C-alpha cells in the first residue's frame, strides 16, 4: 500500500510539476530578455493569453500541435509589436500600456471565445508524449520526467541557449547595455530601439508559446482567463533571477512543484485545499526577499524610454 502510494504520488507530483513549470519557465525567460534590455514588460500577461487563444485556434483548425505552437508565438508577437510601437518607439509609460494590453487581450479573448467556442467547447486530443529512450523507462521518475511532449525538452534546452546567448554573443552584450546604459550602446553604433525591439518581440514569442502550451498541452482547450496570472509570475521570476536563465528554471520548478503537489495530494486522497499549497511558492519567495532583500540590482534604465540626444 505505502509503496504504491509513494509511486503514484511521486509520479503525479513530478509530472504535474513539469507540466505546470513549463509555461512559467517560458514566460520568465521571455520577460527576462525584456528586462535585461530595459523594458518592464507588464503586458506579458496579455501576450500570454492571446498566445493561448491563437495557439489553440491554430492547433484546432490545423489539427497540428506544432502549428498551434507557431500560431501561439505569432499571437504573442502581435501583442508585443503593439508594445514595441507604443513603449519602445514612442516612449509611452510601460506600466500603463502593459496593464492596458493585459486587460484588453483578456477581454478580447474572452469575447472571441464566447462567440466561437462557448457552445461547443472543443477539445484537442491529448498530446502525444515523446518518451526519451532509456531514461523514460526508469521506474517512477521515467514516466514523470521523461515522457512529456517534445516542446517541454525544447524549453529546457532554451535555458542553456539563453545562458550562452547572454554570455557568449554580441547580442547578449547589446541587451545588457540597452538595459544598463542605453546611451553607451547608441554611441557604440548599435540601435537601441532595434535591440529593445528584438527583446520585446522575443518576450512576446515566448509568452505566446507559454500560453499555447497552457491551452494545448496543459488543458487541451481554451477558456477565458486561462493564464490566470502566469504572465505576472513570469515577471516575478525574471525579476528574482536578474538576468540568469538557470535561476528562472529553478524558480519555475519551485512554483511547478507546489502546483504539482496539489494534483498529487488529490491523487493520494489527501484533501488539502489547493490554495494552501499554492501559497507555498509565494511564501518561499517573500521569505527569501525578506532574508536577502538587499536592493535587487535591476537594470539601471529599466522602465525608462530612450531618447537620443535628450537634453
Amino acid at each position: 500500500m505505502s509503496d504504491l502510494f509513494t509511486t503514484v504520488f511521486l509520479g503525479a507530483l513530478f509530472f504535474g510539476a513539469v507540466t505546470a513549470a513549463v509555461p512559467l519557465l517560458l514566460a520568465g525567460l521571455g520577460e527576462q530578455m525584456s528586462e535585461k534590455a530595459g523594458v518592464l514588460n507588464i503586458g506579458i500577461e496579455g501576450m500570454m493569453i492571446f498566445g493561448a487563444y491563437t495557439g489553440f485556434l491554430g492547433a484546432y483548425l490545423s489539427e497540428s500541435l506544432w502549428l498551434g505552437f507557431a500560431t501561439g508565438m505569432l499571437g504573442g508577437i502581435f501583442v508585443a509589436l503593439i508594445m514595441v510601437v507604443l513603449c519602445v518607439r514612442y516612449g509611452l509609460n510601460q506600466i500603463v500600456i502593459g496593464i492596458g494590453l493585459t486587460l484588453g487581450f483578456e477581454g478580447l479573448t474572452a469575447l472571441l471565445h464566447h462567440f466561437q467556442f462557448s457552445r461547443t467547447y472543443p477539445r484537442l486530443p491529448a498530446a502525444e508524449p515523446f518518451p526519451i529512450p532509456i531514461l523514460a523507462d526508469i521506474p517512477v521518475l521515467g514516466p514523470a520526467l521523461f515522457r512529456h511532449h517534445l516542446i517541454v525538452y525544447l524549453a529546457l534546452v532554451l535555458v542553456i541557449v539563453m545562458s550562452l546567448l547572454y554570455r557568449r554573443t554580441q547580442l547578449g552584450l547589446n541587451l545588457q547595455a540597452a538595459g544598463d546604459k542605453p546611451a553607451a550602446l547608441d554611441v557604440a553604433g548599435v540601435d537601441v530601439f532595434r535591440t529593445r525591439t528584438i527583446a520585446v518581440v522575443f518576450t512576446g514569442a515566448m509568452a505566446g508559446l507559454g500560453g499555447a502550451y497552457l491551452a494545448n498541452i496543459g488543458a487541451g482547450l481554451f477558456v477565458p482567463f486561462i493564464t490566470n496570472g502566469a504572465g505576472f509570475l513570469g515577471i516575478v521570476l525574471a525579476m528574482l533571477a536578474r538576468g540568469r536563465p538557470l535561476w528562472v528554471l529553478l524558480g519555475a520548478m519551485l512554483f511547478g512543484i507546489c502546483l504539482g503537489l496539489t494534483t498529487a495530494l488529490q491523487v493520494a486522497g489527501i484533501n488539502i485545499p489547493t490554495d494552501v499549497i499554492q501559497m507555498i511558492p509565494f511564501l518561499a519567495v517573500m521569505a527569501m526577499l525578506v532574508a536577502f532583500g538587499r536592493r535587487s540590482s535591476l537594470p539601471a534604465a529599466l522602465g525608462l524610454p530612450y531618447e537620443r540626444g535628450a537634453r
Partner: protein
Amino acid sequence: MLSPAHHPGEAAPIIELDGVTKRFPGIIANDSVDLALRPGEVHVLLGENGAGKSTLIGMLSGLLQPDAGQIRIDGKVQSIGSPSQALGHGIGTVFQHAMLVPTLTVAENLLLGGPWWRRPNKEGLVEKVETLAQQLGMRIKLDALAADLSLGEQQMVEILRALLRGSRVLILDESTSMLSPAGVEELGALMRRLVERGMALVFITHKLREATAFGDRISVLKLGRKVGEIEPGRFRELDEDTLMAEIVEMMFGIRSDDPESVAQVPGPVDDTIAPLFSVRDLALPAGPNAPGLSEISFDVRPGEILGIAGIDGNGQKQLAEALAGQRADAEGSITLDGAAIDGLTVGGRRARGLRYLTDDRLGEGTVGSFPVAINFFIKEVGAPPYWKGAFERGAAIDQRAAELIKDYDVRTPSRQTPIGQLSGGNVQKVVLARELAEGARVVIYNKPTYGLDLNNTLSIRQRIREVAAQGKAVILISTELEEVLGLANRIAVMAEGRITGFVDNGPDARMNVGRLMIGISQ
C-alpha cells in the same frame, strides 16, 4: 609645447561644417556655424557653458540632426543620421560623461557594436589593444569592470575604442574637466601622438591654458555663433599671453585678463576668533561607487570662507551630505556655535542655521515638475506661517514667493511655472533664496557655479562673499581651482575621502594646492 611633425593647416579637411544651424525650443543652439577639421591638427573649441559646443558635437556624432546647413565629409555632402553612421564616417567621440556600460568589462565595452549574432572576438581584441596601447603608451585593464575604473581610465578606454574603430576624427568633449593635473598632461601628450598619426582632433575645453598648450587651431563659440578662429600660422607666432588675451577678447568681448580670476586675494581671517563650525574625525563607510570619508577635521570661523579643493569624485559630495545630515551612517562630531549637531536630522540642522546648497540643482535640489513657488518651501513643508495645522496657506506662500523672486532676481514667467523649465542660473537663484533668505549661519556650497554662464557665475560668487561678510561661516566645495583661489580665506585639499592638507590663501596658494592635489605633500 611640442611642435607638430608636419605643418597643420595645409591638408584638405576631412570634415567641413557649412552654415550649420540647430534650434531647440526657445533657443538657437548653433547659428550657421562654419568649421573645418583637418588631419594632423588639434582643433580647440572654446566657449562658455551654453555657447553651443555640446550641440555641435551632438551633430558631428550623429546624436542630433542640423536644422539647416550642410556637413561635407571628404568634400562630399553627407548626413550623419545616427551614431553608427558617424562611426562609419570615421568620427569617434569621447563624451564629457563616460559612455561605458558600467556592468560590462572593458573588453566587453570595446566589443560592443559588432554583428549581433557573432561571438565577441576577444582574442583578436587583446592583440589589437596590445599593439595600440604600446604605440601610444596607454595602460588598459581589459578584464576590469568599467564601473571600477577611474574617470581618467574610462576616458583612455573610450579613446582606444575610437581608435579600434579606425576613427580619422576624434572628438574629446571636456575631457580634462575631471582629470588631475598629471592626467591632463598625459592626455595632452597622447593627443599630440594621435595627430602625428594623421588624425584630426577636436578638443573642447573651457580652460585657456589647456587650449594654448595643446592646440594647433582655435575656434571660439559664443551664444551659438562662431565668433573667431585662430589659424595655426598665427597660433605659432603669438606668445602665450598675447594668444590668451586675444581669445579672451573673442569670448567675452572685453580686453582683460582671465575674467574669472579675481584680482584681490582674500587672506586668512583672524584665528583668535572662536570657530563657529567645527568638525572632528568625520568618517563615512565607502559605497559601491563612491569613496568613503575618514578623519575629516576642520574649523570654520565666522566670516571665513573655507575652500575645499580637489579633483571631482574624491568624497566632496559625501562630505557635504554628511555635514547636512543626509547620511545616517556618518560618524564623528560636528558642532555649530559650541552645540553638537551630529545627532540631529537634516531638518534639525537646518533649524540651527546649517544650509547646504547642492551641486545637483535639478536632480535633488528642486522638484522639476513643481511650481517655482512651492520649490522655495520644500525644505520646510508643514512649517508656519506657510502651513496652518496641516493645511497649505496658498496666499502666504504666494506672497513670500513673490518677494523672494524679486529679491533674488529670479527670471520666471510666473510663480506657477514648473521650475524645471527655468534656466540653470534661475534655478540656482531659487535654491539660494531658499537657503539664505532666513536664519543661515553656516553655509555649505557644493560647486555653486557649475554649469552657469559668466554673468550668473560672477553674481553668485559676489553673493558668496557677501554671505561671509555678514559673519556667517562658509564652506565652498569646488573643483574649479580659480574659484577657490578667488574666494576662500583658507583652502583644504581633498583626495580619496581625506583632507590631505590646509593652505592659507596667498600668492603661493596656487602652487601649494596644486602640489597637494597631485599627491606631493608640502
